[in-house]
């Protein structure tokens, strides 16, 4: 237990806002505004107000479709591309790899307008598919997976091939199981990033039926012309992040392992 103290101390700055989030969302905003940050029994009025402020069921469905669907496609593209860049020899391989790296350096914000124009041009404006489109070839994932493949000695491939396995078989039965931590780490990053993403979904979609949680949350927490209603804002935030938090608590061990094994710093 004692050796956990330094880690806990490091957590403190992050626990502050989380604690605030919970306190504010379970305290009636009247009490909270008066400076009483705790009330017993806790109230759910903020949650019911937040829940009624936006069509959350629809947003949940869209967000899950978007993030999980995108991840499923990404895992395939990223694995294949990473394998090609790590194992296959073809002319221009280095150039392709640099192109991927280059994409890593570009902040996604500068691509919003061109991506949006492309989507409109190919008729995918205001669709969940279009929303996911720019992320299908994730540079980050390709890079991560390529590094994973490169850390596996080629003797594994050769041994399997001697036994008569084709490339696909080698990839599926030998290599992919060995880079599982990398894939898991990538999955976590991808899920969290797209779950929280705001600006791109705001621009890429317009009808309510294609909107995701992050955009829905913003629709009732904007307060430039009123005061900040902490109870409402925090309850809305909790509704949005609850599934992610739950996921993290359930699979904590897997997450930590995958990050330590893939050598990736969160």
């Amino acid at each position, binding site marked *: 237990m004692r050796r956990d103290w330094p880690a806990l101390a490091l957590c403190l700055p992050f626990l502050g806002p989380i604690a605030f989030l919970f306190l504010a969302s379970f305290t009636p*905003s*009247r009490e*909270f*505004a*008066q*400076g009483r940050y705790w009330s017993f029994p806790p109230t759910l009025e903020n949650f019911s*107000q937040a829940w*009624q*402020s*936006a069509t959350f069921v629809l947003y949940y469905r869209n967000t899950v479709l978007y993030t999980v669907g995108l991840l499923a496609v990404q895992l395939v593209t990223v694995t294949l591309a990473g394998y090609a860049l790590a194992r296959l020899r073809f002319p221009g391989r280095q150039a392709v790899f640099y192109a991927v790296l280059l994409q890593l350096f570009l902040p996604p914000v500068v691509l*919003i*307008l061109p991506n*949006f*124009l492309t989507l*409109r041009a190919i008729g995918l*404006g205001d669709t969940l598919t279009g929303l996911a489109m720019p992320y299908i070839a994730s540079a980050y994932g390709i890079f991560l997976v390529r590094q994973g493949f490169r850390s596996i000695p080629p003797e594994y491939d050769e041994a399997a091939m001697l036994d008569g396995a084709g490339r696909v078989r080698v990839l599926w039965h030998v290599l992919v199981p060995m880079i599982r931590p990398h894939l898991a780490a990538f999955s976590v990053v991808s899920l969290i990033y797209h779950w929280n993403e705001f*600006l791109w979904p*705001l*621009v890429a979609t*317009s*009808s*309510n039926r294609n*909107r995701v949680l992050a*955009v829905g949350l*913003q*629709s*009732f*927490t*904007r*307060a*430039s*012309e*009123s*005061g*900040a*209603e*902490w109870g*409402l*804002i925090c309850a809305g935030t909790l509704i949005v992040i609850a599934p992610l938090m739950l996921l993290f608590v359930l699979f904590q061990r897997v997450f930590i392992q995958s990050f330590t094994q893939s050598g990736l710093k969160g």
Partner: protein
Amino acid sequence: MKLRALLATLILALVGGIAPMAQAQMKLQFYYPVGVAGPLAKIIDTYVQEWNKSHPQVQVEPVFAGGYTEAYAKTLAAIQAGTPPDVAIMLSQNLNDIIGQNIVIPLDDLIKADAAQMKMDDFFPAFMLNSTSGGKVWSIPFQRSTPVMYYNKDAFKEVGLDPNKPPQTWAEMVAAAKKLTKQEGGRTTRWGLAIPSSGGVDTWLYEALTIAAGGLLYDANNSCCKVLLASKPAETAAQFLRDLGEKEKVSPPGAINWGTTPNDFVAGNVAMIYYTTGGLGFIRNNAKFEFGTAFLAKDQRFGAPTGGGNFYLFKGTPPDRQKAAWEFTKWMTSTDILARWSIDSGYVAPRKSSWETGVMKEYVGKYPQAITARDQLQYAHAELPVKNIIEVKRAIVTAIQTIVTTTQPIGPTLAEAQKRVDDILK
């Protein structure tokens, strides 16, 4: 014979199927931002659903587009993509930038054609200031606000001030604030006055003070392109803002945050605040004491800027769609909807006739504090209307923050900000 009967039925079915298609439904896109915490997006949806039910030929799709800045960005992106919205709410203050982008149409012809229904003199003149430019009307006021003073009547009684006579001048206000400031064991437990100077709409209240000092933050003869920071009233306002914390010690020292000021007010940590009418709902729901609203105090004169969003129509939409979008705009800015919107959201209803409706009278009877903002409109001015507004505001905010957080001389600070703003507007 059978064949013929079959054919006849087929043709009938076809004609029957085509007939409704001939007068095809029109689908309009309506972008709107949200600037007040609460289910405003849902309220807008409700209005649009009502429109859609009563206008089956013109179906409007409401598109929530973020805060004001994001909504503007999304609109520009949609226009670049060749699919502009048919109608949108954008910041009234952005008018000169929007005209500069060459994306909206002046509404004078539409208004003239509808002169009987669309009486522009029914809108408060103060709200039309940021809606007109170069003698043309470019937008119709919808969600508009203006700052007022909120004060804690219980605290007034406690220190022997008349709760029905809020201070009217800066001097009275400072004197009252001194009485209201409460110290306990060397700690201030209640401040007299808070005028937020950072976060949110951060140049707004400084602008209000400049107006009270007898000036304007911009040159009225060159309202698109000239800011007047290096001016006597702007300097007086800055000095006043600094003195509240530094010299008089009636305000928390340093920059005062916009978003949390109403929280401090309802918690009793501060007895008087300058704040938007948009905060009325929050304060009403959360204050456990009696509170009143008053005009912003005067130095040379009463006055306040206005704020908020207007309806705009876009260039390049086919005439029939434009007509439909105009009908929708008229409906959304009709007397009844504006009255309901004011009650639902806390914005000031921009039409005089809205205040004469039954629902509004009932509301005002219950919450007389709502009237102050309307009555103050006779003294109101346009909100800083220059172009490149985001950068200009950033330069002004930097100067204000320097003034309230440091002791650097005010004149040179403002002069430097003036130079930066001039560069931006060159």
